[in-house]
């Protein structure tokens, strides 16, 4: 039996800033995981990844990352994606800083 497809989001790094970004359902790039489009169908996920890869002047290194559906939207299932979502733990210099500036 083929393995069940686990939910994913398309993520990458912004070309100019290097920041972690996520693809949204309306073809935008957001810096917040909760805005990301959650992909539950494998064929659709591959199409969305191709869509991202066709934007080399916007981003670097697109890939599909595992998520789980939470009450506030997608949540990381692995600690690496959790750190990418939040920023480093020694300073509030990543996303945490951006958050507190809002």
């Amino acid at each position, binding site marked *: 039996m083929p393995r069940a497809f686990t939910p994913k989001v398309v993520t990458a*790094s912004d*070309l*100019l*800033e*290097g*920041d*972690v970004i996520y693809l949204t359902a309306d073809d935008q790039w957001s810096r917040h995981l909760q805005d990301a489009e959650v992909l539950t169908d494998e064929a659709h996920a591959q199409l969305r990844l191709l869509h991202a890869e066709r934007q*080399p*002047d916007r981003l*670097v*290194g697109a890939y599909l990352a595992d998520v789980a559906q939470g009450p506030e939207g997608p949540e990381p*299932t*692995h*600690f*690496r994606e959790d*750190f*990418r979502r939040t*920023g*480093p*733990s*020694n*300073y509030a*210099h*990543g*996303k945490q800083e951006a958050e507190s500036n809002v």
Partner: protein
Amino acid sequence: MYNYTEFDHAFLAERNAQFRAQVERRIAGQLTEDEFKPLRLMNGLYLQLHAYMLRVAIPYGTLNSAQMRQLAVLAEKWDKGYGHFTTRQNIQYNWPKLRDVPDMLDALAEVGLHAIQTSGNTIRNVTADHFAGAAADEVADPRPYAELIRQWSTDHPEFQFLGRKFKIAITGAAADRAVIRAHDIGLRIVEQDGARGFEVLVGGGLGRTPMIGKVVRDFLPEVDLLPYLEAIVSTYNLLGRRDNKYKARIKITVHENGIEKVRALTEEAFVQRRAQFSGVDQTLLRDIQEQFAPPPWRASSQDAFDSLYESDPVFRSWADTNLAAHRAEGYAIVSISLKAHGKTPGDATAEQMRVMADLAERYGHNELRISHEQNVILPHVHKSDLPALHAALKEAGLATANIGLISDIIACPGMDYCALATARSIPIAQEIATRFNALKLEHDIGPLKIKISGCINACGHHHVGHIGILGLDRAGVENYQITLGGDGTEDAAIGERAGPGFSADEIIPAIERVVLAYLDLRHSNAETFLQTYRRIGLAPFKSALYPETAVAAE
């Protein structure tokens, strides 16, 4: 210190202009990422977990005050106000924007600094003893040779596409403060019958297959340095494997072919290479050596030092841990700790960089060093200036008295920054330092080196830590493996794995159990952790680490 020539300045300017055009073409969409990546790596620019990272070379760890101030400018203007000093005597900036990097490189070039060959499969920044030119136990200053090697290896056409990166370290003293036994080539200056030369080691390295270098030549006459290095690197270039990235380092070449074969091929190549060297390198070396002439030493009373040492325990504690013996009468080598308890090992703020630059100018003949242990050194300070220096350091949060102690931890960036990491390193270092500071045991424990890496690449040198910690990913959870008994000095040894790893919650108590076991097991407080370990071996520490298994086995 070495002063850059017109040629050097023109070279950097041209190189930076080239890269600026490449960045522009990338941003305009005329270069794909696949085309651009090798170009950016040639200029020290990585893409990490949260941002770009720019790695700047600090050749053999030596800086003047103007250069240190410029590093502060970069931190402030194009980063988030700090920089991270590494075990390879580099500084890494964690937050530059792609568009700004050409400006950063131009700013570095203004003071003769650059990011060339800080990445890629070439000869990397040559590292050296951070006490070079000052240490009491030194045969000769290794930096002129390091500078000669730097000039020879930079853009050397034959060595731009080696099988893998290539690291050379050099020391001028018998005590190894440059980890030469864990480098692709390690050089130690020695004297034989009044002639100066090198003991040459080859094939050391850490990473996934840690190895201690082997002696390929007991005595290499000084004049033969460059042709012999060329012979080694060219032998590796031909013989080294390229079929498997993990087997491409020279340590594997030496391991698989044997040191005898590598030596024979090197000696053969050396005969040819030597014939091609006209002697210009020796003229150049003399020229470089003149520029590294020691500063004029001053003779003055050290009464102020002595009386403060007697009367102020805080000063005394700092002097006892952070000073090292200088070759000149009345002088000391000062290590400035970048390991304040609970802070990120190796980080300095722009403000701290400026303070250190000012102090070097005022009290230290305008010289600073970056140590592979992620601290900053003022190599030449007269003892009469130490009271004032200490007071100024204290004000800047730079007077932590912990050099060589349990909180003087080397930690790689780990998963807080590094895209290759499998777990975090920095929070573990922060917690260990904080815990033992709270226990007030640090000075009682004495010399103890803890080194932490966030993956098997071993940037944090965990294999050669007395206590090494390696962060791993076990089924999606951070897990930490302990090695014991490693040593990065002249008695180099690779640490032994103690057993199964620990979760992030368990690792600090586990380290505490090891250290308390040592306090219990040592003969006296004159016996260091490493000496105790060498006397009694792994077993007693293993029982301390895994009490349940020890009980079950009884």
